[in-house]
């Protein structure tokens, strides 16, 4: 490709050279496009196709019309998984958002120890979800874990064996890992709020609480949308953590859609119904993304990307 550059070095490029050079641009996008099409777009179409087939993962793939869809949609387990997914999404959002805003506002202060705090907070985000799940599994074990070792009855619960407790543990571990990340986003957001707004409010005699609710929070609107989008769409993908921590259990108490898909596909050898669930997962993701973008009141991506 460097041949394009050499002849044009001297002075203003002749029209022909400009044309040739312009021809390079689309080619630059091709490698990314090919890779993404091969392992992103084709699988996406493929998953739709597979949802109309029956395949046990062993033999031939055969078209089977709507059989898989009927099997999945007629199965009460699907509704349950959808419900668990939704619950994880909503509850983890409701726990993480206030905590992240609070921490973010605090971290936005310039004191040095707060920067140190931010560095420490961030550690859980670096660890793999498999590692985190394994550590918590050991920590919470009712017979061999931390509670049993300390002989504190309150801590000796069947943490992963009771549906509500197990669900709470999942939410807690998710928050443990991701709150720091969202605090960081809010920290960035808070630092962008013009100081003049606060000064004006102080002249009006506003206290901290009022300033928080009448200035900080409204000014953080777009940050909240960004952070919420990440949380909500991200919550669809809590596979590793739940797979290792509870394997969807006890029974099906924490079996989210992604896990349901994996179990049906790779454990029960029903790739057709599993693909149907995957399609549902994709649709839920797209719908949520669109909804949140609508909430944002503007098409942030498109305007930014195209307005360049």
């Amino acid at each position: 490709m460097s041949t394009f550059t050499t002849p044009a070095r001297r002075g203003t490029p002749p029209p022909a050279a400009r044309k040739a050079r312009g021809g390079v641009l689309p080619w630059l996008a091709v490698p990314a496009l090919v890779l993404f099409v091969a392992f992103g777009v084709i699988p996406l179409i493929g998953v739709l196709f597979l949802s109309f087939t029956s395949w046990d993962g062993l033999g031939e793939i055969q078209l089977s019309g709507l059989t898989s869809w009927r099997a999945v949609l007629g199965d009460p387990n699907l509704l349950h998984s959808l419900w668990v997914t939704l619950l994880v999404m909503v509850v983890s959002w409701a726990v993480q958002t206030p905590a992240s805003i609070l921490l973010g506002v605090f971290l936005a202060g310039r004191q040095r120890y707060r920067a140190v705090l931010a560095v420490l907070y961030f550690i859980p985000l670096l660890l793999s979800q498999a590692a985190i799940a394994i550590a918590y599994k050991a920590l919470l074990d009712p017979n061999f874990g931390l509670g049993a070792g300390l002989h504190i009855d309150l801590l000796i619960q069947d943490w992963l064996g009771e549906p509500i407790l197990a669900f709470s543990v999942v939410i807690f571990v998710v928050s443990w890992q991701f709150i720091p990340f969202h605090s960081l986003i809010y920290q960035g957001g808070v630092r962008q709020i013009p100081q003049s707004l606060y000064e004006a409010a102080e002249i009006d005699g506003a206290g901290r609480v009022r300033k928080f609710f009448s200035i900080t929070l409204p000014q953080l609107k777009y940050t909240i949308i960004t952070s919420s989008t990440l949380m909500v769409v991200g919550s669809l993908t809590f596979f590793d953590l739940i797979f290792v921590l509870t394997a969807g259990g006890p029974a099906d108490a924490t079996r989210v859609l992604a896990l349901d898909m994996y179990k049906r596909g790779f454990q029960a050898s029903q790739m057709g119904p599993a693909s149907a669930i995957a399609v549902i997962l994709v649709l839920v993701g797209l719908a949520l993304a669109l909804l949140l973008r609508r909430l944002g009141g503007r098409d942030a991506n498109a305007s930014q990307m195209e307005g360049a």
Partner: protein
Amino acid sequence: MSLTQTTGIKRAETLESEPHGHRRKRRRRPGSDGPNWLGGAVSWLWLAIVIVPIYWIVITSFKAQSSYYATNPLLPPTEPTLANYQMVVESDFPLYFVNSLIVTVGAVIPAVAVSFMAAYAIVRGGGRRFLRGVNSLFLMGLAIPLQATIIPVFLIIIRLHLYDSLLGLILPSIAFAIPLSVLILANFIRDVPKELFESMRLDGAGEVATLLRLALPLTMPAVVTVTIYNALTIWNGFLLPLVLTQSPDKRTLPLALWSFQGQYSVNVPAVLASVVLTSLPILAMYIIGRRQLLSGLTAGFSK
């Protein structure tokens, strides 16, 4: 990490230019009402929540299995032992480490390279229908939980005869990393003043030369951030190795960790030693690159 699946809603305001410039003006920040007790209490409480489990993991990994049940779990071991670590190392963890390293490096470098090229093309040739189409495709990729495509990915990898090979992990990892990388890199390339591109053009530089000599150096911080971020995601990846590999000698660290705990879950200190050991490389990277990562991520996501 779930962060790969984002719709990438961004803010028009720029942030990365801001941090230090306003320091003086900002001294009176919201703190002017006296100390923020609530925020302070929450932040110290959160520190405890973060640190206590980590502390427990670390000290327990140095305890002998026999003394583990007998001693106070929150006190450091009286006779620290490295036996657990030795056991983990002898369970082929060095091999898994190398596998993880191959997959991560093998995926991140091409992913960032092709993403950068695509981002450059999209920004510089944004008017063309082809590039607009490519851009929309990547944006769509952001909204879709790519895990949902694991079954066809599995099928394709089989048909490519790449099942149970590290290359079979690398290719989908690259693809999954592209959308977000392109988005973030495009945002930064867009911030490069138009006049600079124009003057490169007047000097007769081609697009490839402009990319290498202008865009790349000016957006280096973003490239580093995207690299670190992707490396983290791929290093910690679990689902792809779980589905696309089978033999123990193709395991990456997270998968090895899972198998190890399945086998030795009764031996809590050994399991925790494996957790510590597999996390050390990332922590080391974090200590070196933390400033870059923290500021880069903030900028990338709140942009």
